[in-house]
């Protein structure tokens, strides 16, 4: 926990520094009020930097165990139930990449094919097996969502390769 607090403190300190630099770069305006568009962002950045430094100092000073509340919030409690912890980062990155890939391929493949691919890939990264049944689930899930979003809600999705069914 000490290391996590330290890492969190360093991360937020970096966020505060970057945000402050961006805040001071906001141009002044002739219409500006006493506080101005930079005013509160600078205060937020300085406060976050100060709190980050306190957290860093506190975590360096003490190696206390996690608080009960903290334990409840983290996925650590689930860690003991994870079969192979080594695959955890890969699976999480895989899940994110699936989302990114969906954004990239949607304009090319259209909704139906993209969402079927997303479901298939997600089944795999959630620990499922790719077989005939999972493909069937992916296709039927995609059709259900197509009916909901395109047929019922009339959402305009990119047409892609298959414009008649977007």
């Amino acid at each position, binding site marked *: 926990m000490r290391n996590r607090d330290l890492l969190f403190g360093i991360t937020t300190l970096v966020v505060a520094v970057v945000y402050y630099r961006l805040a001071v770069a906001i141009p002044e305006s002739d219409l500006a009020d006493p506080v101005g*568009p930079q005013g509160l962002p600078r205060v*937020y950045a300085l406060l976050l930097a100060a*709190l980050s430094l306190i957290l860093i100092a506190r975590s360096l000073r003490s190696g206390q165990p996690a608080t009960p509340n903290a334990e409840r919030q983290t996925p650590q409690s689930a860690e003991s139930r994870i079969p192979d912890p080594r695959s955890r980062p890969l699976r999480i990155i895989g899940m994110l990449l699936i989302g990114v890939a969906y954004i990239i391929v949607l304009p090319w493949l259209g909704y139906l094919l993209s969402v079927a691919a997303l479901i298939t890939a997600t089944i795999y990264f959630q620990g499922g097996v790719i077989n005939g049944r999972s493909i069937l689930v992916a296709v039927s899930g995609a059709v259900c969502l197509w009916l909901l979003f395109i047929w019922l809600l009339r959402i305009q999705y990119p047409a892609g390769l298959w414009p008649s069914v977007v």
Partner: protein
Amino acid sequence: MAVGSLIQLLFSTAIIPAAFGGVAWGILGGALPGISPSITMALLLPFTYGMDSTVAVVLLASTYVGAEYGGSIPAILIGTPGTNAAAATVIDGYEMKRQGKAGEALGISLYSGFVGGLFGFLVLVLLTERLSSVALAFTPSSYFALGMLGLSVIASLAGDSLLKGLMAGLVGLMVATIGTDPVTGLNRFTFGSPELLSGIPPILVMVGLFAVSEMLVQTTAPDWEKATRETARIRFPTPAMWRRIAKPQAIGSAIGAFEGMMPGAGGAISSFLAYNEARRWSRHREEFGHGSPEGVAAPEAANNTVACTALIPMLSLGIPSSNSAAVLLGGFLMHELVPGPMLFVQHGEVVRGLYAGLLVANIAMLIIGYLIMGPCIWLVSRPKPYLMAFIYALVVSGVYAFQASLFNVGVALAFGVVGYALRYFAVPFLPMVLGVVLGFMIESNYRRALVLSNGDPLTFVRNPISAALLATAVVVLAAQLMRQARSRGDAR
């Protein structure tokens, strides 16, 4: 509200189907372990964008009502609470199931949820408007102070780590500054992107933090136990049982009513408090932990009361006291309805519609809760990878549908990563959500108040409402700091 106008309201809009639909969706979502009421509501948020505003808020609030009951289904059938609030129900509900009384436990849970929900509804109707009427005299300085009071809620939400809660709140405030400056119209932190000019909608932050991060967590969580259809034929309580569970229901409802209004308390705390108090006041204390019907009735009445009373500070002051209330607040903001003092003046019909919808939702819970048991068990028994894949597809499709924007999908994914990181670092979500939701109100009113007072900072303490709200915020923060200091002292 007159009965005639209530009936007219119910039948002139789609409130009834929305209430029934929301409850059904909520029960299904709540029944899935890991999918909390707030996630169930967040999944629905994008769909409500194009709806009539009254129907949209009824749908979301009814989802909350349904999810609180839905969480008890896996708690009783497989010993895994579908929601945090149902954790107390596991103790005696699952024990009853092991004794072959699953149907009875489900019936007690449903009936107690109904009783608690109706009680919470009455408290909501009686208190909300009175509380908000105080706030009709609000000026920009009062609104700023109200926002600060809202942020002070972080002290209660952050648990034992006030420092990290405050940091998360600040990050939320920073997110709220993205977009066009509220006074000068200058662009801030937009990096030339036209999509960022109007800022980051709170809905994307919520879907990312709650739903996407849960997907990432579930990636490495094992599958849950499966229920069988035979275990779940609901049996409503007999008259003798009604009499026996009346007291724990009253205890649960009273605790739920009080705790629901308290920032950060939520359903989980009130359920455990109700369980504990019901045991203390029971004539059958020895049965608790061994399949006591009272041990199911008290927490279920409490968490369904909370589903209504948690809306009191949200509707009257614009301060969400729980994750689910924050998502509902996001739904209001999406429809340009600003909860707080003026909501009752400017959009009284929406509030009346919400009241009517909540009443219908509580009745609908009783009906749908009975009918939907089969589909629920079917759903809970599906392989987890299939369910999660479908939910992920629903998330990305719903976020796109919100403004037909792939950029928004990317933003929600990015906040999913932030949410996962917050979980990893043991930082609560709600302070960040509060920062995002209240950030604009705080900044715009702070600056307006200073413009109106020619830059005099004493304007915030000269206005009695503003001074009282700021003083309350300071007291809340100080009390939490003292509590932490005391608990640290005890630990030594």
